């Protein structure tokens, strides 16, 4: 089951980035009335609507050895991202971020503004209001968003293959299924697929429990 171990080592760092950044983006989208909001709203959806292979290719262009960011990383820090586990994490984070951001936006939109106003009008500052009122009320919705983002990251295939390639460090469960099938190792493809199905159904049940709270 080492494919799942590889998957976890790629998805967990991706989520460590996606959950806080996506929640912050969602809060901004839910609350901002600035012109910047429309721009962020459009941009955040791009990785969701593009074909994953294009997302992977875009990452390759920007973060590849000749890319504007990739070349800087390599000369300054000696970091070579392409075809590494970190690259797979970046690919997973890129495709999962829109789901976290849009899910978090929905969670924060559902918080009745009057509940925050009454907190402030009785003397609570913005941070205390967020901590004591907004966040606890949005939490179930943030749980749903996190689960969806985690599932998307776990199921990532196209961007990962394009940007991170298929190697021992990047052989996540979905990639393993495809390459086992190509090799004619049907037993491995089938067993991995079954585990993925069971995990997804479990997550869907978890989602249902969260969204009913």
């Amino acid at each position: 089951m080492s494919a799942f171990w590889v998957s976890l080592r790629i998805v967990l760092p991706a989520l460590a980035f996606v959950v806080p950044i996506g929640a912050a983006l969602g809060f901004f989208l839910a609350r901002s009335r600035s012109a910047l909001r429309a721009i962020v709203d459009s941009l955040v959806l791009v990785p969701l609507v593009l074909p994953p292979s294009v997302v992977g290719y875009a990452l390759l262009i920007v973060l590849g050895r000749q890319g504007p960011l990739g070349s800087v990383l390599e000369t300054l820090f000696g970091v070579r991202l392409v075809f590494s586990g970190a690259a797979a994490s970046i690919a997973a984070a890129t495709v999962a971020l829109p789901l976290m951001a849009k899910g978090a936006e929905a969670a924060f939109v559902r918080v009745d503004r009057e509940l925050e106003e009454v907190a402030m009008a009785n003397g609570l500052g913005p941070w205390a209001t967020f901590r004591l009122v907004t966040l606890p009320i949005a939490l179930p919705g943030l749980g749903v968003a996190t689960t969806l983002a985690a599932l998307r990251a776990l199921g990532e295939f196209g961007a990962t293959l394009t940007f991170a390639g298929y190697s021992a460090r990047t052989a996540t469960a979905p990639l393993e299924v495809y390459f086992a099938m190509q090799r004619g190792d049907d037993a491995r493809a089938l067993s991995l697929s079954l585990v993925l199905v069971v995990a997804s159904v479990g997550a869907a049940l978890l989602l249902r429990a969260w969204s009913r709270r």
Partner: protein
Amino acid sequence: MSDVPRLVVDARLHVPSFDLDLQFTATRGIVVFFGPTASGKTLALRLIAGLERATSGFIRLGEQTLDDAARTFARAETRGVGYAPQHGALWPHRTAREHLTALTTLARASELLAVVGLERQADRTPVHLSGGERQRLSLARALTRSAKLLLLDEPFSALHDDARAAMGDVVRDHAKRGATVLFVTHDRSEATRLGDAFVVFRDGVGAVADAI
């Protein structure tokens, strides 16, 4: 009672589909905001609470300018008021006690729960409280920080007569300790029973009246 002006309001507020024009001076005691539904009473409280910003004019509390249209604006959390909005706006995830400990110490929270008669309901969330209990909790929350300016929007609408009288005494006590209470109601008998002064609202204009 002192007749030193404490709250001086001469402000206008334009929001989509409503214009509010508010002009009054309140001394200590209970000032009743009286008028029909949709005459601007709630919007006036929101303006004084700092949840809306005046389009023109000013609001002063003692020496402090709360709102001077373009120049000064004290945000809601720094105004030092106590506010009980019309439908309570209780926090669904917090128990009665936690509504108060969000703002004060456990000891003060217990004391206030006793004042409004909610000791036995202290560990219940709003969904497990009756309409009257919710209103008493909303009142207790507004009293938590012993604000010099208390803003109550139809605070007794769901209370039975006995509870209404008891909570009226609680508000009266608070006013006697030197606070100004702005009390919104459209109930004439409640207005005359509690009011030391009246601001009458009609079509968005709120002005001082000797009687109602």
